[in-house]
């Protein structure tokens, strides 16, 4: 029941430890966060739970993050997607925003900024 009330965040990043620690920190801050490492796990997770926000690394093994975002948006059009990357490619960011992402962030992600972005996105 408590989980139902929390903002649900799906983290997709093939850098396992980074995804896990981000999950831990977001959970500690009162969100329900779940991390997965690839598109297969992400789709499976999105089938089980209706997430409010997805944080997706653009460079994923097996499937590009932007392609995964399109699939997740088809499954849940209300999902808000924040793309993030370790590469500073502006073209990629622009393509992500044109394809349905609401934000594009660069790693390392500042947690306070991320939380503020999530709250802004969900308010609007």
């Amino acid at each position, binding site marked *: 029941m408590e989980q139902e009330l929390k903002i649900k965040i799906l983290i997709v990043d093939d850098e396992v*430890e980074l995804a896990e620690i*981000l999950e831990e*920190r977001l959970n*500690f801050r009162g969100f329900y966060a779940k991390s997965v490492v690839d598109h297969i796990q992400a789709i499976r997770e999105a089938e089980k739970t209706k997430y409010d926000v997805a944080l997706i690394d653009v460079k994923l093994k*097996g499937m590009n993050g932007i392609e995964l975002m399109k699939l997740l948006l088809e499954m849940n059009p209300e999902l808000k997607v924040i793309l993030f990357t*370790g*590469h500073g490619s502006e073209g990629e960011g622009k393509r992500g925003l044109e394809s349905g992402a609401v934000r594009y962030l660069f*790693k*390392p992600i500042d*947690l306070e900024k991320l939380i503020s972005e999530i709250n802004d996105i969900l308010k609007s």
Partner: protein
Amino acid sequence: MFKISDEFEVVAKIVAGVTHQLNNVFSIVDEISGSIQDTINLGGNLTAENLKKKLDKISHHSQRGKVLVKSLNRFVHLRDTTFREIDIIELLEDFVLLHSHFINQKGFRFATCFEEEKKLVFCSPFYLFYACHQIVWNFLNIKNENSEIKISVLGSADSLKIVFSTILPKESKSDFNELIVSLGQIVSGYNIGVNLKDEEPYATVEVCFIHNK
């Protein structure tokens, strides 16, 4: 129109790959230290065991960063001299590490088969790295699916060779052959030879040293 040379492109690709890997290292260290601060500032329960686990992770990733920087540093100094004696084992270890980002992204993996013992050759270190990069890069571009790239060092003294091998689709072999022929023309002036051996279903490229002393 300005055209980036292939040689410069290799440097750009390596820097891009290492930047990505280092950024992940910094991000993890940043997140872990942030999580320790969260617990202290926001009143969570941080046991000694949990703190040790997190500090071990910071130490592990700092070490990973140091190794990457060391390899990158050796890579940028490959051009210091056109010709010199070089340990191909050390060069290949750096090569594997500096390419691990691209390999992972494409779902490939390296299978390395060489001893730790030094294997010295006399050639252009940069063009040796360049030849290895072009072979692997073309493997990745031609075969866009999960696969293994085997790297072995065979022979000894004046017959040393580095062998790259992977399974390639039959229809792409003639294109690959052309690439290897043109690569051979570029590196032959640097005491490096490349030969394609077609052993169905494998494409095997041997990098040899023309006048190894």
